């Protein structure tokens, strides 16, 4: 470790007092220990062990003080040399830093040979005990790179040594020494064996100690040694007043900082990251929109794109006091464009925004191109088939039991109500597919088709949306599904109830069959009326009869077209024939709902007049064109928070 020698320049004055006070505390501590080993050792030989030197050299990097201290045998001589050299400097140098600790002190006693292992051990223990001090000083010297620390140390302890030196070595009193905090067992050997001192056990002991300190905790990758290094570096860097009293909080802070690394730059940076990410994602939206492949494509897009003109409809809604703000509307427009590019979409519409507790949902209503959605449907149908099997095994087991035992627990008669099949896609409640994303720029997720049971249950519960599609819906009565299903069910209900258009805008297409042949199902398709001339705004506002629903009403069953749940398929009839006849068939009435294109004035419940009083006043002042928006909602309510 060929570190360059440091300049023996004493550091400046003012910090000294602080350091001195801390040094004093350390001195006091070291003093406590001094008598102990001074008693023991006739010759206070606490040589700078090779191990310690090794340690210091390894851990510290540049150790000006330790220059020339090579691990090895020539220790004592070097120490002596150092000591002598520094003695000369003792006088004029202030004591600038903390002491290195006891190990350095007993230089004068190095003449004595034969260091007992016990003493070595004790010293090492004390060194460990003062490991902080040792490291501290070493760190300190690393930090300052100042040579004179060293002689300063010597100067302080010099006097002490002279006082206490030359005592006869007493027996090992280590165990009774309260100052000793490190248990001997951890060192891996007993200190009481009197051995011929050899460098190997010392090295071994030191290495054991070091290994112990470097152990990483079970919970984290931080070892005690590293933590102490961090702590002391921090203290040395910050130089707080009276660090001993705030040692615990410094300790905690250091530990915290290890796991929450703070960059040295402006402290707000970590806070900005979530907004940065959001902005990044949204930037992607803008970049895509502008990166066209030439003007031709642009023209095509304008003419034939399924992407709706969100800005235009937002403008109209804004006149009525409903809207998301122009910035957000534009972003939604870009996000819809992105969706159209990603999926084979025939028509697309911004359905609305549903507010959630943590995040909100932006919902897009799409219709796929013919044939494109079949591949995606297969995935959805598989889980549905798995649930139909359990009936038959149950019956067989019951019969076996009856044969075996006389007393049999009566088999429950209850059978779960038959599952009503969900509607085919492109019809009824599943007429459209819905994509959701949490914010413009986020990924679009497709919602699964809705089943009748989900709609029925969704009518009975009221839960906030959290914003996460996979969140469970904990409610009573229990909802069969996750938040994605709940969201889809509510979307279906809202769509079925609130999508309206002016009377006459849509008409039924001319069909071959009579209406009666279709039974109570009614028509489910409509087309635009080319002869529609528009209704004056005032009339639209005043009377509800001028608005009609153009989505199918959802029956209490949960579907738009009624299905008799007791109608069995052929397979089921064969299995369950006998039992059914025993129980008796239940008559189920066909459920009928208002047919398509029913005016709002026919709606049951309290008549809701339009709250477009504001719009009326606006209409008077600014002549808005005739209402061309076929799918405007009757109320702003449908578009906003559905909690």
């Amino acid at each position, binding site marked *: 470790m060929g570190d360059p020698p440091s300049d023996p320049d004493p550091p400046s004055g003012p910090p000294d007092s602080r350091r001195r006070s801390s040094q004093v505390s350390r001195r006091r501590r070291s003093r406590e220990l001094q008598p102990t080993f001074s008693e023991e050792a006739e010759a206070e030989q606490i040589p700078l062990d090779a191990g310690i030197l090794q340690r210091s050299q390894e851990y510290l990097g540049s150790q000006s003080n330790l220059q020339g201290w090579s691990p090895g045998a020539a220790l004592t001589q070097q120490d002596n040399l150092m000591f002598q050299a520094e003695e000369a400097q003792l006088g004029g140098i202030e004591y600038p830093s903390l002491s290195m600790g006891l190990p350095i002190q007993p230089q004068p006693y190095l003449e004595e040979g034969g260091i007992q292992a016990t003493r070595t051990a004790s010293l090492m223990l004390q060194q460990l005990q003062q490991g902080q001090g040792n490291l501290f000083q070493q760190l300190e010297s690393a930090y300052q790179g100042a040579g004179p620390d060293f002689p300063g140390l010597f100067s302080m302890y010099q006097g002490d040594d002279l006082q206490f030196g030359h005592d006869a070595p007493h027996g090992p009193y280590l165990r009774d020494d309260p100052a000793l905090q490190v248990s001997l067992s951890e060192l891996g050997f007993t200190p009481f064996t009197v051995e011929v001192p050899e460098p190997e056990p010392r090295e071994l002991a030191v290495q054991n100690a070091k290994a112990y300190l470097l152990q990483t905790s079970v919970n984290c990758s931080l070892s005690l040694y590293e933590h102490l290094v961090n702590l002391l570096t921090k203290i040395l860097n910050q130089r707080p007043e009276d660090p001993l009293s705030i040692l615990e909080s410094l300790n905690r802070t250091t530990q915290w900082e290890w796991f929450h690394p703070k960059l040295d730059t402006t402290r707000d940076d970590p806070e900005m990251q979530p907004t940065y990410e959001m902005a990044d994602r949204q930037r992607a939206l803008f970049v895509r929109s502008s990166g066209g492949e030439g003007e031709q494509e642009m023209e095509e897009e304008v003419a034939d794109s399924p992407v709706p003109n969100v800005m235009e409809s937002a403008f109209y809604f804004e006149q009525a006091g*409903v*809207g*998301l703000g122009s910035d957000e509307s534009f972003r939604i427009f870009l996000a819809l464009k992105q969706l159209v590019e990603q999926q084979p979409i025939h028509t697309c519409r911004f359905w609305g925004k549903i*507010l959630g507790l943590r995040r909100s949902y932006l919902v897009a209503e799409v219709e796929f191109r013919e044939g494109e959605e079949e591949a995606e449907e297969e995935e959805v149908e598989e889980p549905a088939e798995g649930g139909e099997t359990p009936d038959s095994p149950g019956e067989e087991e019951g019969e076996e039991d009856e044969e075996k035992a006389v007393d049999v627990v009566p088999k429950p008669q209850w059978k779960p109500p038959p599952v009503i099949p969900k509607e085919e896609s492109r019809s009824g409640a599943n007429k459209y597919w819905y994509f959701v994303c949490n914010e413009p*720029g986020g990924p679009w997720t497709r919602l699964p088709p809705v089943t009748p049971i989900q709609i029925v249950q969704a009518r009975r519960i009221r839960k906030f949306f959290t914003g996460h599609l996979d969140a469970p819906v904990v409610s009573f009565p229990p909802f069969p599904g996750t938040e994605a299903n709940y969201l889809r069910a509510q979307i279906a209900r809202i769509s079925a109830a*609130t999508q309206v258009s002016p009377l006459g805008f849509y008409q039924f297409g001319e069909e071959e069959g009579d209406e009666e042949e279709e039974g109570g199902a009614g028509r489910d398709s409509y087309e635009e009326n080319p002869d529609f001339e528009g209704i004056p705004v005032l009339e639209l506002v005043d009377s509800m009869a001028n608005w009609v629903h153009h989505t199918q009403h959802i029956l209490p069953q949960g579907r738009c077209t009624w299905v008799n749940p007791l109608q069995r398929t052929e397979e089921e009839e064969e299995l369950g024939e006998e039992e059914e006849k025993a129980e008796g068939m239940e008559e189920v009435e066909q459920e009928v709902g208002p047919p398509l294109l029913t005016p709002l004035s026919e709606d049951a419940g309290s008549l809701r007049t339009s709250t477009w009083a504001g719009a009326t006043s606006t209409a008077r002042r600014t002549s808005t064109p005739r209402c061309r928006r076929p799918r405007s909602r009757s109320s702003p309510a449908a578009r906003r928070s559905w909690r």
Partner: protein
Amino acid sequence: MDAESLLLSLELASGSGQGLSPDRRASLLTSLMLVKRDYRFDRVLFWGRILGLVGDYYIAQGLSEDQLAPRKTLYSLNCMEWSLLPPATEEMVAQTSVVKGRFMGDPSHEYEHTEVQKTNEGEKVFEEDVVVQIKEETRLVSVIDQIDKAVAVIPRGALFKTPFGPVHVNRTFEGLSLSEAKKLSSYFHFREPVQLKNKTLLEKADLDPSLDFLDSLEHDIPKGLIHLQAEASGAVEEKAKWQRGQTAPGLQDTGDYSSNRGPGACRWREATLWWCCAACSGQASPSSMLPAPRTVAISTWEPARRT
């Protein structure tokens, strides 16, 4: 929201889907100025809007120098002519708690509620059906009061209390940093404190008497009343959900606000508290798919990043 920063605040509150049409915005700006002059308010806040069947009520509140003093509430149907509402009393609240359903939109409308009252005449007890007339204005007053008590929220540090008692706007408040804005503990209820005196001395020792003189949001029971949400624009929306069973089914309020602006505050990140009351009827049939009266109060304050 403060009348002075009305447009900006409306812009921030737009994430909820509620907004004002341009003509309303323009008329609000003008009329609130006049209200401030006529009633000699220190600050005028646009509280929000309550939707009714026939018309909407636009509500404004005026504050005097002492921010915690009872506020005067005004309402208007067209954002131009404002009428003062009487202060709410407990009787009013109790009386109007029986009224359910939506607001009509006509302040003179009277709800009829039949009650069974027992009257003693000598030794006999008669039960009579008494029809009680409740005016819509009274209902309006009590609804506004209840919403205020439940969800009026203000960020910590926006107001400070002087030793003499009055509460003032803190002119040096620059807003909350983003991390602070996401914590419930940085917000207080903007009403007379109720829980403060129940705190132990130990807890009170940590409080700063000039700033922490209101109930904090984090000790609210039941928890989960107020949710903070970071908007894509960087605004933090606070939504308080509160179910009021006694009025329309599913009347839910969301969170609330106050407006503060420090001098020269850089509005990097602005938080919007808004409230929205929505109701769902729970029926899928087109008939009863009706939203209940919605009170929309939009307010903002600007927590700015400290530079």
